């Protein structure tokens, strides 16, 4: 009955739609976000954005993560899912749980955990490298502008790969085993089966997970960066979301922050559309 939707609809309008509209509206104003009257300044916030070196750097860093993280996450998830479902591993259940584990940890816990893994002196990574005789390559991973983004990317991939793996596993389980059996009889190697059966049959799921993963990076990177690097060293790991937060809440530049928010919104919609277009195929 339609009436049952009303409370939900009201809440949706009140807590989702209205604030979202406000973001768009407030992005045209000069406003500290505290007590003053917002002053209309048209598109100035948007123009400023593209003269702001820090914003452009943050955008570049975000772009790096948006490209690197989904690619590796989904690739690893796909390969793992395929191995776990297609082989007769006895420990299948354990691996599935283990790989999925990071997805149920809070982002804050993950960030703290990894900042200790990367700890320059007592960290697991550097100590491990020293043990293997690679001590000369050990470095302050989060403190060096050349490595910091990769280090963060690894954390993000680790966090998400298990989640997508489980999605893919469910997908693979629904592929008819006959296909694999027939391919096997025809002499197709497991690798060929992966390329020609698994990936095409999962294609629609993969398309969706690409978009999920891109949006996941946008939101999760905020927590990970805030805790692990605070945007450092010297803004080399600043992402748009952390910069938005800084402008809104530490620089009292709310209108500008909202403009960044609008930009991120448009940016991710366009990215999703592009990804959707690129991965489009005829019905198989």
């Amino acid at each position, binding site marked *: *009955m339609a*009436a*049952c939707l*009303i*409370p939900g609809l*009201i*809440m949706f309008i009140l807590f989702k739609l209205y604030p979202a509209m406000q973001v768009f509206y407030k992005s045209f104003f*000069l406003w*500290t*976000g*505290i*007590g*003053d009257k917002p002053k209309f*300044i048209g598109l100035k916030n948007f123009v*400023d954005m593209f003269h*702001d070196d*820090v*914003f452009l750097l943050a955008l570049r860093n975000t772009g790096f993560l948006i490209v690197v993280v989904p690619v590796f996450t989904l690739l690893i998830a796909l390969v793992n899912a395929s191995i776990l479902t297609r082989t007769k591993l006895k420990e299948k259940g354990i691996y599935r749980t283990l790989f999925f584990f990071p997805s149920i940890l809070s982002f804050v816990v993950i960030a703290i955990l990894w*900042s200790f893994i*990367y*700890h*320059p*002196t007592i960290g697991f990574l550097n100590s491990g490298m020293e043990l293997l005789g690679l001590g000369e390559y050990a470095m*302050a*991973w*989060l*403190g*060096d*502008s050349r490595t910091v983004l990769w280090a963060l990317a690894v954390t993000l991939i680790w966090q998400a790969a298990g989640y997508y793996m489980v999605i893919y596993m469910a997908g693979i389980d629904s592929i008819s085993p006959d296909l694999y059996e027939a391919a096997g009889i025809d002499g197709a190697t497991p690798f060929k089966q992966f390329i020609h059966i698994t990936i095409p049959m999962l294609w629609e799921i993969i398309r969706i997970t690409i978009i999920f993963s891109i949006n996941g990076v946008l939101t999760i990177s905020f927590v990970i960066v805030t805790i692990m*690097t*605070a*945007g*450092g*060293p*010297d*803004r080399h790991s600043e992402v748009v979301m952390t910069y938005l937060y*800084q*402008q809104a*809440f*530490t*620089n*009292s*530049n709310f*209108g*500008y922050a909202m403009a960044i928010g609008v930009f991120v919104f448009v940016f991710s919609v366009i990215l999703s559309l592009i990804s959707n277009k690129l991965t489009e195929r005829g019905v198989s």
Partner: protein
Amino acid sequence: MKWHKILSAVSACALSVSLLAGCGNSSSSDSGSTDAAGTNDGGSKKVANGELNIAVFQGGYGREYWDQISDEFMKDHPGTKINITASPKIAELVRPKIVAGNPPDLMYIAGGDNLPILDGLIKDKALTDLSDIFNTDEGSGALKDKMLPGVLESRSMAPYGDGKIYLAPFNFGVLGLWYNKTLFDQKSIQTPKTWDELFAMNATAKDNGRALFTYQGLYPGYLDEVIIPSIYDLGGQKALDQFFDYDPEFWKSDVFKQVWGNIQKFANEDNGLMKGTVALNHTQAQTSFMQGKAMFIPNGTWFEDEMKDAPREEGFQFGFLGIPSFNSGSSVKAMSQIEQIVIPAKAKNPELAAEFLKYIYTDKSIKLNAEKSKAVMAVKDAADLAKPFISETTYNVYKAVDNGMELVNGTFKTVAKGSRYSPKDEVYKTISSLMNKQMTLDQYSDKMYKMYSEVSKELKDSAE
């Protein structure tokens, strides 16, 4: 089945209506009660009756002081009622109220996450002028004479440079370099008085298996504790004003070259900067220091309490050095940091808030604050009043100030509204690149010169 559907529809509607009604009700009753309080104020002049809503930061000092001082105040002022909101994230709690035009009557805002809201209020000119409270003599001398010298005149309290006080000082901390006192005593190492002496200790540091220096790498803002006193040491108030008021020429001055050159020296000298410092957060860096991985680290008087559960090398004892000077003739310096209390311009009950603020500065309150919060207020002789309650280390730091350690303080001028720059971030965050040797001093100064030119231009434009 049908009945069931109708029932659920009715209940759904009822729920949504009650939701809306709930919103409407609460806001209207709110304004009603405050209105009543407002009219009450007008009636009685002496003791402003009514309700006082205060919002306080609940950090390392806790909230016990505020609970008790409010009780005392209500006892001494019958008919008043104080409601306290306390939280470590107090800014997040009060922000919606301020936006809605219904701020608390008095706010004690401290802690790095919360302070930006004060900057916002300053930008908005949304604070009450408190000058009268400090200037009025009610028989026992004006309140301003009770404060530590120089505090009320500083930009932290008088942000617009017109001498009017908009922020009231509360607890104060002393910030500078720290060392392990036990190590220095046992090996009879002399504490350095000048930078030359400090850098000469690098060999001693190495002999004792530690680097000379570390800092809170992810948050290079901590380096202001070294930089600000150093600027003052070399160039006096004039250079400090240049630095805080965005005079681009500061970045071409000798003062800049020497102070930042010093910071860079830590990175350039062998064993100067603890390995991996740039990648450490404050807790990690401070723990490393206490475990004997570095000889010196900047931090404030809260250090001992902040790290009370952290592992440390055997016999570790906190020792406060301050900031060495450049010339052997001048005194050791330290930075002071003073917490602030404000009354928002839109406060519903400013008279009572002012009354309460005065009450905070009574001797009774200062003692209570020391006892409950283990903190020292920015008033004369507060350290001695607090002595029975604070640790010896902390007391000695405050005493050192009385014995000739010079305190330096300063705040960046508030940037123009809508400016995308946060000069503090720009100045300090960029230091990471210096420390990583990915930027030269000249590149740094060029970048800052450009930033200062733009910020001061924005300020000029917005003033017109």
